C-alpha cells in the first residue's frame, strides 16, 4: 500500500500522529487515529460528519490534549505542549469558522502572526525601542507582501469586521503565514466561499505547497480535494478508514458506506 504513495514514504515524516485517543464522556471522538505527513506533502482529510476530523485537528493544533497517543513534529512529541508553542515549532492552523480580530485592521491582524517580536514584552518598548521599531518595520513589510499574496491589500487599513466570509479565510491564511510555518493545518478553507474566491484560495494553497510547505486539509469539497491532493485520508468513527489517491479512495465501498451509514442512521 505505501508503495503507491511515494511522496509519503520517500521523505522523512514531518508530522506524525500515533494512536491518538480523545474521549468526551463516553464518546471516543478520536479513537486510535494515526497519520503520517511527509515533508512537502499535501494531504486531504475527509470523512462523514461526526467522524472526529475536527477533534483530530484540534489535537494536532494543541487546542485539545489527547488522552493517549503521540504527535511527533520532527523528532519531538508535542502532544502535551501548549497550543501557543506549536506555531513557533512550525505548525500553523486556520479555523473552520474564521476568527478575525474584528476591531483591528487587516494589516494589524496579519502583524499579530509575527513570531519572536521583542516588542511583545512591556519593557523592550522602553529599553530598546529602536530594535522594536526595526522588527516592526520588517514585519509590516512582510505583512504587506502577504496581503498582496492573498489579494487583500486594498483593505489593508480596514477593520477586519468588514471582510466577507471568503476574505476572512484569506486573511486567516495570511495571518498564519506571517509565522512562516512549515506545516499548515487548514480547516475547511473552502467552506462558504464564493466560486471566484474559491479559485483564488485553491491557487494560493497550491502555491504554498509548491513552496515546500506541508499541508493537511480538512475539506468537504471533494472537487477541491481531488484537485489539490495526491493522497486523501478518510476518517470514520474516530479512526482511519482508508487512505490513497482521491479517485481510488472515493470508489471504495467501505468509504461510500461510511458516508451513507450516516444518512441511514
Amino acid at each position, binding site marked *: 500500500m505505501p508503495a503507491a504513495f511515494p511522496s509519503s514514504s520517500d521523505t522523512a515524516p514531518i508530522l506524525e500522529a500515533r494512536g491518538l485517543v480523545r474521549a468526551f464522556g463516553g464518546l471516543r471522538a478520536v479513537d486510535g487515529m494515526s497519520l503520517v505527513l511527509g515533508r512537502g506533502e499535501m494531504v486531504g482529510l475527509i470523512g462523514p460528519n461526526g467522524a472526529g476530523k475536527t477533534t483530530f485537528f484540534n489535537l494536532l493544533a494543541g487546542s485539545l490534549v489527547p488522552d493517549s497517543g503521540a504527535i511527533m513534529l520532527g523528532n519531538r512529541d508535542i502532544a502535551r505542549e501548549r497550543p*501557543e*508553542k506549536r506555531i513557533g515549532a512550525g505548525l500553523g492552523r486556520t479555523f473552520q469558522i474564521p476568527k478575525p*480580530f474584528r476591531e483591528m485592521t487587516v494589516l494589524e491582524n496579519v*502583524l499579530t502572526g509575527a513570531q519572536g517580536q521583542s516588542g*511583545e514584552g512591556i519593557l523592550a518598548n522602553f529599553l530598546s525601542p529602536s530594535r522594536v521599531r*526595526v522588527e516592526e*518595520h520588517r514585519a509590516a513589510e512582510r505583512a504587506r507582501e502577504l496581503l498582496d499574496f492573498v489579494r487583500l491589500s486594498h*483593505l489593508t487599513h480596514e477593520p477586519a469586521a468588514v471582510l466577507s466570509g471568503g476574505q476572512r479565510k484569506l486573511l486567516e491564511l495570511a495571518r498564519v503565514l506571517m509565522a512562516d510555518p512549515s506545516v499548515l493545518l487548514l480547516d475547511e478553507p473552502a467552506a462558504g466561499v464564493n466560486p471566484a474566491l474559491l479559485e483564488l484560495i485553491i491557487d494560493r494553497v497550491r502555491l504554498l505547497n509548491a513552496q515546500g510547505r506541508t499541508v493537511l486539509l480538512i475539506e468537504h469539497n471533494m472537487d477541491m480535494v481531488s484537485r489539490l491532493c495526491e493522497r486523501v485520508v478518510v476518517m470514520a468513527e474516530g479512526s482511519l478508514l482508508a487512505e490513497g489517491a482521491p479517485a481510488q479512495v472515493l470508489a471504495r465501498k467501505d468509504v461510500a458506506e461510511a458516508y451513507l451509514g450516516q444518512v441511514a442512521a
Partner: protein
Amino acid sequence: MILDLAAYLAFFLTVALSYAVITLGLNVQWGQTGLFNVGVAGFVAVGAYASALLTTPDAPDRFGGFGLPIIVGWAGAMLAAGLVSLAVGALTMRLRSDYLAIATFGVAVVVQLCALNLQTVTGGPFGIGFIPRPFTSFAGDPLLFSLANLALLALVVLALYLFLERLLSSPWGRVLRAIREDEAAATALGKPALRFRLQAFALGGAIMGLAGAAQAHFIGFIAPDNYLPTLTFQVWAMLIVGGSGNNRGAILGAVVVWALWALSGSVIGSVFPAGWQARAAALQIALIGVGLCAILLWRPRGILGERRIVSRHLVTAPKANPSLVNNTPPEIPHA
C-alpha cells in the same frame, strides 16, 4: 470671589484627574484586554492604605506609620496594588469574563471589610488621618496650594498617558487587543493569552493603586467608606462615557462624569432640605446611570471611540482601492 472659584476649579480638576488615573488603569484591563474587573475600588483601596501606612508618622494605636517620603508611598502603593492584582489574577485569569466579574467584586468587598475590621493596621472605621500632603508649605494660600496639587496630578496623568499610549501602540498592546477579540485565534498564533492577561491585569491594578495613593495624599485622610462599590461604578461610567479602549477618552470621561457628579451633588445640596439630603444623594447615582444609558444609546463607543489604527510605525496610507483584485506592489514604509 474669582479666586475662590479658581481655587474650587483647581480642586475639582485635581479630583477629576485622580479619577482619570483610575480610569486609565481600568482601560488597560477592560478597554484593551477585555478583563471585566468589577472590583476597582478594592485595588484603589490597597494603594491608598499602602501609601498611608508608609508615609504617616508613627502611630501608637496601630501598626506602622513609617514616616517615609510621599514618593516612596506612591511607589509602594503601585507595588502593593500590582502584587495584589497579580495574586488575584493568578487565581482568576482563567475564568470566563462573567465569573471574573464576580470574583473581582468579591475581592473588593473583602478588601473593604479588611479595611473596616483590621483596626490595628487600617485604623478600622475611623480610617487613617494625618497622611502627609504635598506642598504643605503653600497651605496658607488655598489657590496656590490647589494649583500646585493640580499641576502635580496633571503631570502624573500626562506621564501615564504617554506611557500607556506607547504601550497601546506597541506589539504588546496589539497582542492584548488580539486576545480581547479572539483568545483562541491569538493562542493559535503563539500568544500565551494567560500571561498577557495577567500582565495587563497587574499593570492596571498598579495604576489604580497609584490613583488611590494620589487621592489619599491630596485629601490627607482615608476611611473604608471611600472604597465602596459606588467608586467602581463611577469609574466604569467614566470609561464607557469617555470611550473604552481610548486613553484620551478615559481621561475625558473621568472629567465629564466627575463634573456631572459634583454638579448634581451641589444642586441636590441646595434644592433638598437638610433632612432629605442623605436620601437625595442616591439621585447622583441615578443621574450617572441615566447619563450612561444615554451615551450607550447615542454613542455606543463612547465620546471618543477606540481608534482604528493604533499600531505605531505603520505609515498610514488608508486609501481604499475600489478594485477587488489589486496586483500593484504595496508601498513599504522605510525606517
